[in-house]
Each structure stands twice: as C-alpha cells, then as structure tokens.
C-alpha cells in the first residue's frame, strides 16, 4: 500500500544507515515471534527424558515422534481433535451463510425494516448482558450444557462481520441486482446467484475470522461443555495439572514431575497451532483489506 513512496524516503544518502537500523529491528522482531514456536516444536520432537536437562533449544537433541504417538494413542486427543474440527467446519459453514444473508438484507435500503433491524444489531456491539445472564440462559433456561449446539448457535453471527460484508455489498454495482430483478429473480435468488459469487473476498475474510474463532474458542467449553472437550480445552487441562505442581522455590525435584507433561503439552500446542499456520498466510490480502474497510467505514 505504502510501497510507492519509498524512493522518496530512502533517497537521502546520509540517512541510509537508518534503513539498516529498521532492518535489524524487523529481524529482531521476527526472531522474537518465531523463536517461541521453534522452541515448542523442538521440545515436542525431542526425547522427554532429554528435555528435562534444559528446555532452551530449537533443534531437537534426541529426535523422536514418541510424544505425538503418545498424545494420539494414549491421551484420548483424537476425539478432542475431531471435536475441534467439527465445530470449526460446522460453525464456519453456517456462520458464513447466515452472515452473508443478513448482510445482504441490511444492504437493501428499500427493505421496510432496514433501519430498525440494523439498529437492533448495532446496539449489541456496545452493550451485552454479560457472562452470568448468558450462562444462565444457556444452561438453565435452554438446557444446552454439553450439547454440541452450544458451540454453534450462541456465536452464530458477529455483528462486526455483518457490517464488514454489508459495506462490501453496498460497493457492488446496483445495476446487477436490477437486471436480475427484471429477469424475474426473487430476492433470495438475487442473493444466491448474483451477490454471493461476487462476495468471495469478504466471504474469505469472514470465514477466516469465524474459523479462527471456532478453532481457538476455549471459554465456551470451559463454561458450558466440559464433557465435549476441544483441543484447546485438553491443552488447558494438561497445563493446569502441570502448573499446580510447580513451586519456584523447590525446583530440583519438582521439575521432574513437570517436564514429562511438558513434552506432551508442547506436542498438543503444535497440533493446535499448525492448522492456523497453514491457513492464515494465504488469506492475508483479504483480511488486511477487510480490517481497513471496516475501520474506515464505521
């Protein structure tokens, strides 16, 4: 975006050193971001007994897959993994369709209830009932505890995403809709056949936001569905078990207890991180655009 102006800035010969300062800063930042993940990866691929000696390395000293084999066979991680995948796929799929539908209706200025509906949705961005009333609604009134539905329906639509998509649809030429209308298409057909195919960039953005939200969600499992553990929740449980034992002033014998879970924990951390790592770089141009669009227009 700002690339076109770099000749102007970099031109001054005397200020060339400054570019190298910036370069070094960026390099440092990359190291600071990447090192922790490499460290985790190395521990997860290292022999657990060997890891006990020292945890600060980024190349496995004694290479092994045993930690991964352990988590998928002994630790019942398979079902948690499937649960995470299921909620991500279902939640994202339904969420994107609902967001797109609502966004289209709210972009139609001729819709009689456009104003009141929009206001109703926007208000909820600023005030919410809070944790306790929501908890009571879901567990006591609707009896959704430990029901898969609790992962999908309460967080079905994010108003922010609707606004993002609505701005995009409003930017599309209205003539397309009018042409379809003259051809006899009803509003649903216009949405499905004309609007949706043109919305790919925002659909990608919204899908990424929803999918990441679903994959990373932890609080809903913690509050409502501990019997349907996801990857995040299993990782949390293992972390809890490990940290309770750690007493900073009695290290020597304690570390032995804490480190074996350490290898397992790091392996799960990697399993939970990799899907995100694979997806987000490819959607970068979409979500950066989406972020700025939402910010400017709101």
């Amino acid at each position: 975006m700002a690339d076109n102006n770099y000749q102007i800035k970099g031109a001054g010969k005397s200020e060339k050193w400054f570019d190298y300062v910036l370069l070094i800063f960026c390099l440092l930042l990359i190291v600071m971001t990447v090192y922790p993940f490499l460290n985790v990866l190395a521990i997860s691929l290292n022999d657990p007994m060997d890891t006990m000696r020292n945890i600060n390395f980024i190349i496995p000293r004694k290479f092994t897959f045993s930690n991964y084999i352990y988590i998928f066979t002994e630790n019942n991680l398979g079902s948690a993994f499937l649960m995470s995948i299921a909620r991500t796929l279902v939640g994202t799929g339904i969420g994107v369709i609902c967001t797109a539908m609502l966004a289209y209706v709210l972009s139609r200025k001729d819709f009689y209830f456009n104003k009141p509906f929009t206001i109703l949705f926007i208000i909820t961005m600023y005030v919410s009932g809070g944790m306790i009333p929501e908890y009571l609604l879901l567990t006591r009134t609707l009896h959704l505890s430990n029901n898969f539905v609790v992962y999908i329906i309460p967080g079905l639509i994010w108003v922010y995403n609707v606004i993002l998509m609505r701005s995009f649809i409003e930017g599309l030429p209205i003539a397309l809709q009018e042409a379809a209308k003259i051809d006899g298409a009803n509003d649903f057909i216009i949405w499905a056949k004309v609007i949706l195919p043109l919305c790919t960039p925002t659909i990608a953005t919204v899908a990424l936001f929803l999918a990441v939200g679903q994959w990373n969600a932890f609080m809903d499992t913690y509050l409502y569905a501990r019997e349907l553990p996801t990857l995040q929740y299993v990782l949390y449980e293992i972390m809890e078990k490990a940290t309770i034992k750690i007493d900073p002033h009695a290290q020597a014998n304690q570390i032995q207890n804490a480190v074996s879970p350490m290898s397992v924990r790091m392996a799960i951390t990697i399993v939970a991180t990799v899907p995100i790592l694979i997806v987000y770089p490819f959607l970068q141009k979409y979500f950066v655009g989406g972020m700025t669009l939402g910010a400017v227009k709101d």
Partner: protein
Amino acid sequence: MKKQNAKPKVQKEKFSWNLMWKQRYLLLMSVPFVIWLIVFKYIPLWGWTMAFQEVKPNSFALPIWERKFVGFDNFIQAFTDRLFPQTMINTIGISILGIAIGTISSIFFALVLNEICFTRFKKITQTVSYLPHFVSWVIIASIAKMLLNDGGAVDTMLNTKLHLMSTNSALFWVVVCLINVWKEMGWDAIIYLSAMAGIDQGLYEAAKVDGANRFQRIWNITLPSIKPTVIVLLIMSVGGALNVGMERQMLLSNGIVQDHAMVLSWFAYVRGIGSNNYGLGTAIGMFQSVVGIILLFIANKIAGMLGESKLV
C-alpha cells in the same frame, strides 16, 4: 468509496401488507436472525434485572415477581467484598498499562514498516507479525509459561532473578501486558499503517524540499496525520477499560500470582457461577458494562473539548 457509489435516495414506502408480501423473501432472510438476536443478546440484557434481586440456583426458576427484590444490596455486597479493592486496582492497572504500551508499540511498529524500504522483507515481517494474533490464548499461555517460568528461555536470558511468573506483585501486570503486545502488535499496526498509506505524498516531497530530515518528516507529517485514527481507537479502548478479559487472565495466571491477576470479569465469574450467587455476579457484570459506557462518553466528550475528532 461510499460517495462514488451514492445512488439516488430510495423512496421509503409506507407500511402495507402488499409491501410486506413484496419483500417476503427479505423478511424470511432476516427475521430468523432478529429472533436469534433477541434470544441470545437481548434476553441476557433483560437478565440485568437479576442484579436487583436475590437469585440463587433454587430461586432462579421462580418467575421474576416472586424472587426477592433486594434493591442495591448486590452492588453493596460486591463493593464491600474483600476481593473487590484489589480486583479494581488490577483491572485499572492492567488496562492503563495495556492501552499505553499497546498503543505506543503498535504505532512504533507501523512507523517502522512504513519507513522501511526493503519491500519484500517488509511483507515477510508483516506476515510473521500476524501469526500470534491468530493463535489462541490457551496456546499463548502454554508457550508463555514454558518461556517465562524459571528455567525457560526468557527467564534464563534475564538471569533468573525476576521470577516473572511467580512473583506476587504488580510485575504480573507488566508480564501480561507485554505478552499481549507480543500477540497483538502486528495486528493492531494494520490500522495505523492504512492510515499512514492515506497520507498525501506531496507533503513529504514538500518537506524534503524544505530540508526536513527523516525524523522531522515522521514527527511533523506522519504522526499528526494519523492522530485522528489514534484518538478514535483510544476513545474506544477507554470505553473497554474495565473489560479486561477473564480468559487471558485465568490462563496466564497461576496460584502464586492470582491476587494480581484477578479482574472484574473473572471476579463476576467467581462470585456468580463459582459461588452460585447469580444476583451478585450479574451486579458485578452490570457495574462493569455501565461504567464502560460512561467512560466511553467521558472520553468522547474530552476528545471533543480538546478539539479532536470524536467518535460519535
């Protein structure tokens, strides 16, 4: 963009059943979501009435008029709770620290990216910097506890004197805020970077002709130009000052630092769900929301008085 596409204003038709029939598909495509909204967003809001009642697990099933009305007792009980003062201090401390460090670091990072002239390298840095934003707090906590606990890489680098995760003091606030910066700096910089991309390049050229060096151009052109964006974001974060998320606090803390990790939302959970005093928990949550809205208006007003761009 909006201006270019401005269409002739659509004439709003009067209500008629004929019109409803004409727009039946639009109704079908939106009414279910409005019902969803009412059930999952507005009914919890109605739940605020519980803040003025005594609601325990056995009295929850009662219809609202049969529950005991207690006025502001729940609020008084919350404010006199032995955990309340420290919780309030933590919430405000973490918030102010977080807003200050977060804003400064992401503006700084945006400036660096804006100034750097190695285009490809800039792209790589940006991509890498988004990574932690997409990673869950559970994962971040898992990694942070590995790195910061005694014997971890950061702890070793700092010479093991600090006990970052095991000192029961406000040091934990700093740790939480720095971890947050590590996670969100790249992402938050996007918005500043786009504001910088919108600056008129003629300004820089003119300044160059006038002999301004790079720092002077940053100070006199870039920073003043992004000021409106900064102000709007600051107003919004002041509005959310009390909403320090329970998830992050709970995951990063441990038994030792708990006193300094407790924040309002977590406190609401502990009292409301942990001790099954729903009325009290709701009161704490309501206090948090209402103060948030008041803060938002105050910040907005102050920004307006200082002649800055306002949010509303």
